[in-house]
Each structure stands twice: as C-alpha cells, then as structure tokens.
C-alpha cells in the first residue's frame, strides 16, 4: 500500500480532539504533580522526621512501580474497595502522583544543591525557615531545578499515552479508531507522533525562555 496522508485528513478533527484531551490531562497532572513535588521536596529536606518518612515512602512506592500498574490500581482496583473514579479522574490522579514523586526528588536535590552557608547566613540574619526558603534558598534552587523539571514534564506528556488503557480517548487512542476505518497505521501513528512532538517542543521553548530570563543576572 502506498503512503497516502489524504485518506486520514478527514479525521483531523478526531485527532485534534484527542490531542486536546492529552493537553488537558497533561496540564492538570503537571500542575498537581508540581504542587505535590514541591511539598514532597520540602518534606524531604525538613528537620521533622515523620515528614521525611512520609515523603520517602511516597517516592519509594511511586518511583518503584510502573505508572501503568498505578493507573490500573486506581481505576480497576479501587472500585473493589468501594472507591470509584471516572477514567479522567483516575488518569489525572495517577499521572499527578507519579510525576509528583519524581518532582519531589528534583526539588530535594535542588534545595540541597544550594550552599549550606546560604541558609546559615539567612539564619544569622534572623530569618525564619520559610522566609529563608522564599528569599534565599528557593530562588537559587530554581536554577538547578528547572532543567530536570522540564525533562520530567516531557516524560509526563509522553506517558499520558498510557491512560488510553484506562479507557480515556486521548491522542494515542484516537489512532485506533481512525485505523479501524482507514487501515492506515503508518500515516496515523506518524501524525500522532508529530502532534506529541509539537506539544513537547512548545514546552521546551517555554522552558528555554524561562532559563534565559533567570540567568540574566547570574553570578560571575
């Protein structure tokens, strides 16, 4: 069969709808995952051991098991315990928890990368830990955090293809439905690949701008 993209062009609206679902899923789980990761990172660097213990348990479980298994437990497993979620909620929750675990590690290593003298200087000035975090440690940690964070966000966008398996019709899953009526696997999956590429590229461009803005007044 010769390659012919015109056959699948009429299905563009279907792809775009799937892509829109992928965007919604990704944005929501990235936002939630970021919040979780910041809280997790702060817990991991806290002086209070129960907070560290909880955060350690969290990252241990969610980085140590496959995302797919986590999604299946949330969507197919929990109903058995009487907890039912829609596929969208389960998808977002699973991706957020998974992303949050990785972001926790990224935030932790960013915070610990800041020279200890900085928090000592802040303490010596009388700053509380929270003021020191916002004014001294955080702004310096962000520079270290952003590059791996962008990587993680790209991973999350790509991983969102897995939520198709908990019955969400996002970008990847639209492929199947188009193939059923066109039998054009190559064309369909290359179009889908390009759409993922567009999303991840947009993210990388935004990140580049952010990094540029922040290194404007770097130390010599």
């Amino acid at each position, binding site marked *: 069969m010769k390659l012919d993209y015109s056959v699948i062009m009429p299905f563009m609206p279907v792809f775009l709808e799937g892509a829109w679902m992928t965007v919604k899923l990704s944005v929501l789980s990235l936002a939630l995952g970021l919040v979780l990761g910041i809280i997790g990172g702060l817990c991991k660097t806290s002086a209070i051991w129960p907070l560290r213990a909880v955060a350690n348990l969290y990252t241990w479980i969610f980085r140590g098991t496959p995302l797919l298994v986590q999604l299946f437990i949330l969507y197919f497993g929990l109903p058995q315990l009487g907890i039912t979620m829609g596929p969208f909620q389960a998808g977002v929750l699973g991706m957020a928890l998974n992303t949050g675990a990785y972001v926790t590690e990224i935030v932790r290593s960013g915070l610990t990368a800041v020279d200890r003298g900085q928090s000592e200087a802040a303490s*010596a000035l009388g700053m509380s830990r929270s003021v020191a975090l916002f004014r001294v440690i955080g702004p310096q940690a962000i520079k270290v955090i952003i590059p791996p964070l962008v990587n993680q966000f790209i991973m999350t966008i790509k991983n969102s293809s897995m939520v198709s398996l908990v019955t969400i019709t996002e970008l990847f899953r639209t492929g199947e439905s188009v193939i059923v009526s066109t039998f054009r696997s190559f064309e369909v999956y290359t179009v889908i690949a390009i759409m993922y590429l567009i999303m991840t590229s947009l993210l990388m461009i935004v990140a580049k701008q952010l990094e540029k803005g922040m290194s404007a007044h770097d130390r010599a």
Partner: protein
Amino acid sequence: MIELNQVNKSYGKHQVLFDINLTIAKREKVVILGPSGSGKSTVLRCINGLETIQSGDIRYEGASVLGDKAMRKLRLEVGMVFQRFHLFPHRTALENVMEGPIWVKGMKKHEAKELATDLLAKVGLSGKEDSYPGKLSGGQQQRVAIARSLAMQPKAILFDEPTSALDPELVGEVLSVMKEVAAEGMSMVVVTHEIGFAREVADRIVFMDQGKVIETGTPDEILDRPQHVRTQSFLSRILK
C-alpha cells in the same frame, strides 16, 4: 551580655568543645585566638545556634537561648560575619543589605533602601550598590557582608575569620571597617589570626586549643606575657 557556661559540644563521638566558659560584656571586644581545629568557629556557631550543644548553657541578656524564643531574639540582635562571606549571589549589594531589615524586621522598602545606601557608603562601597556579589572583590564582598549585618542594627557581631579568605592586599580594607565598627561601641567577638588587630582593638583575648580555653587576658598579658606553653608556641609560630 553573652555568657557561655560549661558548654560541651560534640559531633557524634568526636568532642570538639570542653567546658567552655566565656562572658562577653556590652561594648566589649573579645578576640579568640587558637590553632586550626581548636574549636573557635564552633564557639561562635554555638552562640547563635548554628550548632546545637550537648550540655551547658548559653545565655543572652540573662535568658538561656536554648529555647526557641530567646534564640530568635539573639539572632535579631547578634549578627555574624563569615569567613566566606555568604552573600546572597542572586541579589545586588544593596539588596543584600536591605534583605534583613525588610524580611525580618518588616521595614518599609524605601527606608531599607536609604539605610542600605548609607551603610554601603560607610563601608566605602558607594557606587557598588547595583553590583552582584560575583562582580566584587573578596574585600568588597566582606564589606557588603558587614553592612548586611549592621543593617539589622545589632548589639553584637560575631566575626569568624573575616579576613582569612582574602588576598593579603585586601585584608586592610576589611580590618579598617571593623575598627570603625568597634570604635562606635559595638560588642564584638572576633576569631582572627590578625595579631595587630587583636592588640589594637581587643579588650580581652581568649586563647583556645583542642576545644578548651587555655587562657584569657588583656592583649598585653596574652601577647607579651603568655603564661601557658601552648599559647607561647602558638604565638611564636604565627609571629614568625
């Protein structure tokens, strides 16, 4: 004003301070001398709570600072200047000095700016307000750090080898700022190897070795008539 009673400090099994007793009176300048590893920095860091102590007591204006509240008061009123400056690299010289007044004392931004501008002028850095620390020499950075500490209008300042990380030709500018601060009546605890500064400024010199205070006295007593062999051999080594 600051009082250490029988302070013991260990890192794990390794004890680094043994029964330290030390009193710093208001407006007094105390210089701590001693070989590397004798525990000088640790004494300063225990005073403002950067290290916790295993036993003994540290009191500030009569109250034990082992409690959080008293420690907060001490940190508000006792500044610290570090060997390696520890300026905030993401903020300009002026912002470094403004940071404490604004974020700890809640001072209005324009007032803090005025205060910081005056203090930078006082340490001889007018014109450097907008420079980031990375663009300043070591001597300039340390003077910004002194201004940052002064901006909190402290009653005392702890100096931990403030000139040891500097090129020799930059030591003088920092010492002269410190002498000026001393002349204004600030209480100071200074760890330094600058014997000239100690002789000129100190009311009292404390000599430490291996985590213990070996002897204490006026500069003349310690520098010219040291009683203890360890003090004598230390002085002969650094005066060589």
